[in-house]
């Protein structure tokens, strides 16, 4: 389960239907008692009077996949998880759309909260994903994660 290479990057926004299907797929796994989901949504930030209308995501795929599999391994070592999934968008994602989906499942509730927080932080700091914030007037700035 841990070594399996996963398809993490999704071209375009992550649809609510995709998220719903992911939940439905877990209904056959009877050892799960708690799911936790984190969804990252593109925020229409305002910078000097200009509003962000979309983020264009790119990544260094070979390294990103390697890093994500390390994060996966670390999460399974550290927490008592039944399964976990990470998805991230690439390409142009409009404000209000979902670009990041972390789905953590375990027997019981406590582990999924801490694991989710930890996984989200690791993805933000360690995975080479780059984002261009595009304003309504098509001007842009490069996004940088802050904590």
């Amino acid at each position, binding site marked *: 389960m841990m070594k399996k290479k996963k398809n993490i990057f999704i071209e375009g926004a992550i649809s609510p239907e995709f998220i719903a299907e992911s939940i439905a797929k877990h209904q056959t796994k009877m050892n799960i008692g708690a799911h936790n989901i984190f969804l990252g949504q593109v925020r229409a930030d305002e910078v000097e009077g200009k509003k962000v209308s979309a983020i264009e995501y*790119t*990544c260094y795929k070979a390294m990103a996949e390697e890093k994500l599999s390390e994060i996966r391994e670390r999460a399974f070592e550290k927490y008592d998880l039944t399964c976990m999934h990470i998805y991230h968008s690439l390409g142009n994602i409009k404000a209000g759309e979902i670009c990041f989906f972390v789905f953590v499942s375990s027997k019981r509730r406590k582990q999924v909260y801490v694991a989710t927080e930890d996984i*989200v932080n690791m993805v933000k700091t360690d995975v080479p994903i780059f984002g261009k914030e595009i304003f309504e007037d098509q001007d842009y700035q490069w996004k*940088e994660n802050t904590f």
Partner: protein
Amino acid sequence: MKKLKQVQLDDNQKKENMINIKYFGAIAEVTNCSSENIKKSSSSLNDIIQEIYSKYDLKHIPLKFALNQKIIETTEGIDVNINDEIAVLPPFAGG
């Protein structure tokens, strides 16, 4: 999305001591290509990085270097060879 030029090393370039460098995000915008082959005057990673800095104005971007998909914490004393993958990375913005 603008398609940037991407190149790979051919056998002749390998003989000529060239090395392939990958650029991403804000860096690729400055270099105007997502990868290129540069002549390496020495095998020291530090020297190669200095060459990149002298070729492009990258001082305003807090960048990181990756060697074979691993972040290099310190570039001192690291040697690279022809098949290594060097990447210049701007700040991460995932999530």
